[in-house]
């Protein structure tokens, strides 16, 4: 568990350092995310499945990341409450905000799904609808 948390923090640190040094437009934690994904895939491509898992790509890292992602919503609350300081801006722009949020979200959904639907050659996999208890990832 401490090692798993260390891995997340270290990759965030490296990502943030790269962003500062190279003046990248991508935020540090996002760079860290892609670096960690690449590192995991590289490690897995070198590890045979019958060998024990390495200390780096550990079940602890999986369970920690699952816990963090499961309470992702909670992590948005402190910044979200900042909405109270934005009330004058929100109310002054009520109509554009409501229309843009609704229209843009709907357009984004439809365009993404339509392009994916048209460009996918093979047939869709059969539908399975289990209830995973609301667990996201």
């Amino acid at each position, binding site marked *: 568990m401490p090692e798993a948390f260390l891995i997340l923090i270290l990759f965030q640190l490296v990502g943030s350092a790269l962003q500062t040094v190279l003046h990248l437009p991508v935020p540090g934690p996002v760079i860290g995310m892609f670096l960690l994904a690449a590192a995991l895939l590289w490690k897995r491509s070198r590890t045979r499945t019958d060998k024990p898992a390495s200390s780096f790509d550990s079940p602890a890292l999986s369970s920690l990341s699952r816990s963090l992602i499961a309470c992702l919503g909670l992590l948005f609350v402190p910044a979200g409450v900042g909405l109270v300081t934005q009330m004058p801006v929100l109310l002054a722009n009520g109509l554009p905000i409501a229309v843009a949020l609704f229209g843009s979200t709907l357009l984004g959904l439809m365009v*993404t799904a339509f392009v994916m639907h048209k460009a996918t050659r093979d047939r869709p996999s059969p539908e399975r609808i289990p209830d995973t208890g609301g667990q996201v990832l």
Partner: protein
Amino acid sequence: MQSLSHTLHQIYARFLPEPNMETLFWLSVTLAVFALGVRLQIRLGRAPWANPVLFAIAFVALGLLITETPYGTYFQSVKIINFLLGPATVALAIPLADSIRLVTRSLPAMTLALLAGSITSVVSGVLLVLLLGGSHDVALSMAPKAVTTPIAIAITTQIGGIPALTAAFAILGGIIAAMIGETTLRRLGITDWRAHGLAAGIAGSGIAAAQVAQRDPVGAAFAALGIGLNGLVTAIIVPLILYFLPG
């Protein structure tokens, strides 16, 4: 109402004079209200409209109002929760690595859909705000709203938007996507869970992805991918698009 608020403020000022007590108090309130929101949503049959994040934000805001606490004091108390957004973003690497086999199989289609969806979200958001007479700050804050919130906040900080507004837009956009996504796409004749998942991840990030994940495992994998890749693509295209847009 005025005197009630005053009394509550006096109780607050009497019992929470130390910074440490204040931190513990607001951390407890935030965690308790969020947990209550989650329970309420489960009680309502996991209804997408009963979103726990919105619930927690509303009640904490009400709490700040009646105890006359400034937002700065509250944020100082709960900034450890906010700090965890960084490691949580890095943690998205694990589902991303786990679902890599599915991606490589439909890579060309995914790339096209990802670019089309990202550009549509950013451009339509910014243009709709500007066309309807919204302010420049609001338009900038609207640009990265479809991305998962930690990434959206980082992008909006970089381009000069208002992080709190972007967070609100991302959450509200996610709720809209979760509520109307599946029915809208089925009406268009799209039943493939890969398309449903990717669209939810790209247009509505975490909240919409959670909705799809409850319905289908393939949808969950593609929603996770949509979130991760849309973060990268949007972080790169937002500065580019803003460079070419008027204003």
